[in-house]
């Protein structure tokens, strides 16, 4: 079971590990249909309120649904061929979320990407 609420905001967030935001959702994105909290609502170029992912994607209809974007942004995709960290692993299913995972709130203190995974990446060497 996902550690994140299925009733909450479905917009992907996370500094290192992508996961649904989970905050109480007050709206549905008219573009992708996801539940969205206030923090993840934004205006697109036409002035319509959409989720931040759709707003960032702009008006380029050729991009199709945003699942491709989510996949490419999921850091676990970097480990697709790496042993236990592949796409079928518990990490990618979100069933073993590390309570110490970074969130956007931690981003300010983790500006240097090379520092971010010290003592977090337990496959590090």
């Amino acid at each position: 079971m996902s550690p994140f609420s299925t009733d909450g905001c479905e917009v992907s967030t996370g500094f290192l590990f992508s996961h649904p935001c989970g905050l109480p959702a007050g709206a549905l994105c008219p573009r992708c249909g996801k539940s969205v909290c206030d923090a993840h609502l934004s205006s697109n170029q036409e002035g319509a309120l959409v989720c931040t992912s759709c707003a960032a994607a702009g008006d380029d209809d050729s991009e199709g649904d945003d699942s491709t974007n989510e996949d490419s942004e999921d850091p676990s995709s970097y480990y697709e061929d790496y042993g236990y960290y592949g796409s079928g692993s518990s990490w990618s299913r979100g069933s073993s979320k590390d309570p110490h995972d970074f969130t956007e709130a931690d981003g300010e203190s983790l500006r240097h990407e090379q520092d971010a995974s010290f003592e977090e990446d337990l496959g590090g060497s």
Partner: protein
Amino acid sequence: MGTRWLIYALGGGMGHFTRACGLARVAARRGHRVTVVTNSVFAPAVPLEDVLGAGAHVHRLNPDLAKAAVREAVECLLDGVRPEVLVVDTFPRGLAGELAPLLPGLRMGKVLVHRDLNPTYVERFNVAAAVEDFDLLLVPGEDAPFSQHPRAVRTAPWLLLERDEWLGRAQARQQLGVDPEDARPLVAVMGSGNAEEVAEAGAIATRLQARLGASAPVRWLAPPGPWFPVRPAKSGAPARNMLQPVRVWPALAVMPGVDILVGAGGYNTVQEARVTGTPLVALARARRYDRQAVRLRPEELARTEAELMERVVALVGPRVARAPETYSGGARDAVALIERTVLSA
């Protein structure tokens, strides 16, 4: 009188547990009861117990464990083993930082196995403070940030096998599928690090064989692991005429049969090549804590695969020069140092 040792060897790849087991088997043969703990993805498939023998035990943590679970597992091990000696490989704060708050309160001999570390990590995580909690720093065969510490002692590199356990040249070549009568130089490409790099070693070996043709047989060495059988790349058709991996562990045993070793700049590959006098051509792989480009000597380091190919071709040339062996049993000296300075304190 044997004592209880816990060797903390958490970390990816094979370097941590291989170095730890090199120490553990010597300690076990001296009558100590040794537990090695690892969380490497390689560890479940590698028959560590076969080389450790009686008196040593391996505790394999699930590589998927999150930080909190690792911390809990380490605390349970400390409580269960109740070691008289705690040996920590590489990470004085623990891989997840979990040892740092525990160390000051641990009433046992504490030994750090101190190899190279990323200076950014050392500085930003105040590794110097954690180092002060150790009674002895052992520096096995290469420079390290605190190698000048007053409690630091350098030793020769630690290897998993003693000199008399290496195969003879003819037997090693036979094990690698080369006729002992075949006088051509044997090139071995070592797969290690992670699954992607093991597969990449296969691709390099295949290209090298195509380049060298009949002038030298090429072998792709790989340890047992979850990447067997190696999957074909997702994008593109399966490679034709791809060399098949030779399952070898520990690779040190067959090194006397190898004339040119191709690999990466990890601790074991580099030290095993140098100690056995095997010419090494290596790519420096990116690691979070380890600086392979610093470890490799200029004559060992290839900055690109094209350079690597050219260096190997040049080495295959008319005569392959093999340096003299320099084995001197660093792990044995380390155990003696621990017994003398920590256990008798």
